[in-house]
């Protein structure tokens, strides 16, 4: 098939075969793990820095500003300078803080982000784990992140942090439900929970077009709930600046703060990547049924490009409403979930089931 030229499977396979011919299977596994781990670290660090820069530029454009302009051409090196600054900062531990938990919390948050990234297919053949329960793994692991936030709030010995952590706890536990249910809606359409299967199922048409009305509803519910799960505006109650100074990471400084900061942006990437994978066809190029000529032109664009193009588009949407809307209040955030998103979601699942059952999708 046409898109095979951009397939990474042969590339990864050749590395594996090359290593296997030289070393024992255990050593091969160890080396491969190290390579993959380093690749992810590098990706997270670089993409995180890029995202911070992108967010600052995007928000500046929304606000008729220029954003960072001083460090490097168009401020391109600004986030690197910020990162170096954060590395050099003193690590402060507040008096009477629970030292062990206080130091543990940022690692939990960042490790969870890494775990979820591992199942996201960036391009054909460029994925670490491909479970048959991939979607389930994503929802399960991403909810562990809240423990890190709760620990950070609790162990900081600061009332603002505690309020922020409690808010975050209530919020994430509620919005897990919507994320899960909107994904279930799409699983009904896909018929599989394996992420590679879901991507493969979108060869002819992306699911958001295939599932038309229920899929579009599920997409927006997913984006809203996903934003809430990443604690981004307008759901940034956990770190509501004007109310709680900085919420759960008020007391963190230096690299530990950077972990929270990075995790937030990685989570943003994860939500966008999941939305891309499940609704927008992952790395699949834009295909429309029988238009062979069109499809072949689209196939010329590599899968990696398609994936990042879609991810950035979803991220832009999330940044757009972050920089437009006021923040919700804590009771309203729960109202929104339990009185609006949940009923809509349940109804949407029924609708999708009916659509699939009667073959009403494209």
């Amino acid at each position: 098939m046409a898109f095979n030229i951009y397939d990474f499977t042969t590339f990864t396979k050749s590395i594996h075969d090359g290593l296997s011919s030289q070393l024992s299977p255990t050593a091969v596994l160890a080396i491969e793990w190290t390579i993959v781990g380093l690749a992810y670290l590098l990706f997270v660090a670089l993409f995180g820095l890029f995202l911070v820069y992108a967010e600052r530029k995007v928000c500046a454009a929304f606000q008729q500003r220029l954003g960072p302009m001083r460090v490097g051409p168009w401020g391109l090196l600004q986030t690197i300078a910020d990162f170096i600054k954060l590395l050099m900062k003193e690590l402060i531990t507040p008096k009477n803080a629970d030292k062990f938990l206080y130091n543990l919390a940022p690692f939990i948050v960042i490790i969870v982000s890494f775990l979820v990234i591992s199942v996201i297919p960036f391009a054909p053949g460029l994925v670490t784990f491909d479970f048959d329960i991939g979607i389930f793994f994503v929802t399960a692991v991403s909810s562990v992140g809240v423990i890190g936030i709760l620990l950070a709030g609790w162990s900081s010995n600061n009332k603002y942090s505690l309020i922020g952590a409690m808010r975050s706890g209530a919020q994430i536990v509620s919005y897990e439900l919507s994320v899960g249910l909107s994904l279930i809606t799409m699983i009904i359409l896909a018929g599989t929970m394996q992420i590679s299967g879901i991507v493969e199922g979108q060869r002819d048409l992306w699911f958001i077009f295939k599932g038309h009305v229920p899929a579009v509803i599920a997409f927006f519910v997913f984006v809203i709930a996903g934003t809430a799960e990443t604690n981004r505006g307008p759901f940034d109650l956990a770190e509501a600046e004007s109310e709680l100074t900085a919420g759960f990471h008020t007391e963190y400084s230096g690299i530990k703060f950077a972990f929270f900061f990075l995790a937030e942006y990685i989570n943003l990437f994860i939500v966008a990547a999941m939305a891309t994978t499940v609704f927008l066809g992952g790395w699949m190029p834009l295909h429309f049924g029988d238009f062979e000529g069109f499809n072949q032109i689209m196939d010329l664009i590599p899968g990696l490009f398609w994936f990042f193009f879609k991810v950035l588009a979803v991220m832009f949407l999330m940044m757009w409403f972050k920089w437009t809307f006021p923040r919700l209040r804590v009771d309203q955030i729960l109202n929104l979930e339990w009185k609006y998103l949940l009923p809509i979601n349940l109804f949407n699942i029924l609708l999708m089931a009916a659509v699939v059952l009667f073959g009403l999708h494209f």
Partner: protein
Amino acid sequence: MKAIYNYIKEILQGIWTLLTGMRVTAKYFFTPWKHVTQQYPENRDTLKIADRFRGEVIMPHNENNEHKCTGCGICEINCPNGSIEIITKTLVNEEGKKKRAIDQHIYHLGMCTFCNLCIKACPTGAIVMGQRFEHAVWDRTLLTKVLNQPGSKIMEGVKE
């Protein structure tokens, strides 16, 4: 049924108001050339400062190093913060008549609130407000200035 209708209406209305807001921000996002940020040190040459802008008190001198200050001290009295100190000296002219003249017109920029009262009170118009606003210095003693230039004297015909 009515309740469900209202519920759906409420949701749609809410979404509509949100979209209205997003349209406003989008309008500015997609017109990036309309940004309002000015990059300050770069735009120094094109920077427009109003003629009346009160940046600092200055004492204009003409080409013969002459000013209009008689040393009367009215500005010193009118200053609410004590930013101005007048030190006078006595000059004796050829005819042997004693005359008071300004020795040093000391101006503490660091204390000045730019209220314009000294300029308004000055009977001879010797001091005016300058438009320079970049006053940052490394040492605060540099903020104390002597407004009359060394060796300067009063213009002919300026009377108290």
